[in-house]
């Protein structure tokens, strides 16, 4: 079974996971299933992590995306500030991605390693969802997307940061 088949089989679990994480952080009343509507217009806040499977040296990308406006609301709520700074915004979306990706990894692949998160403001969604499994949830009436997909052949995973001394771990296990 390919990686993407494995994720496709777990689609329902991914949807449930996304709802549970967002509901725990923001309140269950604020979160609802989404019919897969696109993210609203305007800049997009994205968090990206990579799962490395040492068994076959494959890389799986986990992306969480939402409108910048929604990200501001989430950051304000979680940090209890009226106007989160750009650093706070990226920190919150990084951690949101980290929590979701950590649960994705625990759900599907136990023998892998999870990278540290990165976060960016971009002008549109990555569009890479067609190569993987994309689920979404509605938060405060706006869409948050979770995409789990194999790393694309040309995708630079070499620049990803790994926790602690992961390079040492790789060396001792190879």
């Amino acid at each position, binding site marked *: 079974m390919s990686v993407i088949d494995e994720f496709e089989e777990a689609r329902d679990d991914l949807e449930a996971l996304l709802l549970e994480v967002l509901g725990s952080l923001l309140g269950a009343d604020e979160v609802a299933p989404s019919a897969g509507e696109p993210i609203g217009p305007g800049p997009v806040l994205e968090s990206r992590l990579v799962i490395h499977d040492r068994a076959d040296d494959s890389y799986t990308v986990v992306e969480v995306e939402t409108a910048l406006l929604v990200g501001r609301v989430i950051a304000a709520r979680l*940090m209890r500030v009226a106007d989160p700074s750009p650093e706070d915004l990226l920190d919150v979306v990084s951690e949101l991605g980290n929590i979701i990706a950590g649960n994705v990894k625990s759900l599907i692949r136990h023998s892998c390693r999870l990278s540290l998160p990165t976060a960016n403001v971009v002008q549109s969604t990555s569009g890479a969802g067609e190569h993987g499994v994309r689920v979404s949830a509605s938060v405060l009436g706006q869409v948050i997307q979770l995409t789990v997909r194999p790393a694309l052949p040309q995708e630079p995973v070499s620049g990803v940061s790994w926790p602690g001394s992961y390079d040492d771990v790789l060396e001792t296990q190879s």
Partner: protein
Amino acid sequence: MKILVADDSRAMRMIVVRTLRQAGLSGHVILEAEDGQQALDLVGAESPDVILSDWNMPNMNGIEFLKALRAAGSTIPFCFVTSEGSEEMRDQAAEAGALGVIAKPFTPEHFLEVLGTVVSA
């Protein structure tokens, strides 16, 4: 009582401290570190009574931090607060001497359940 919270996310450190308060475990001195190395340095300087640490952090991750502590003879109660709560990681944490693993997202009840015996209300 001094509680050291180690997490590379400032937002998560804030949430952990807030959840401690919501669990009724408040009124303590909170020390914060952004990674395992900084946390290890703080242990030497501040002698915390309890440590709550993320697992995935840059420079020195949580399990490396715990192993370094135990190798130095420290028996400070240590609990992971991490986004990954797999059985494999829980076993690894227990083997290294952790009190427990609290998986994100968490609730005040989770905190009380794991930390109630080592953090005073």
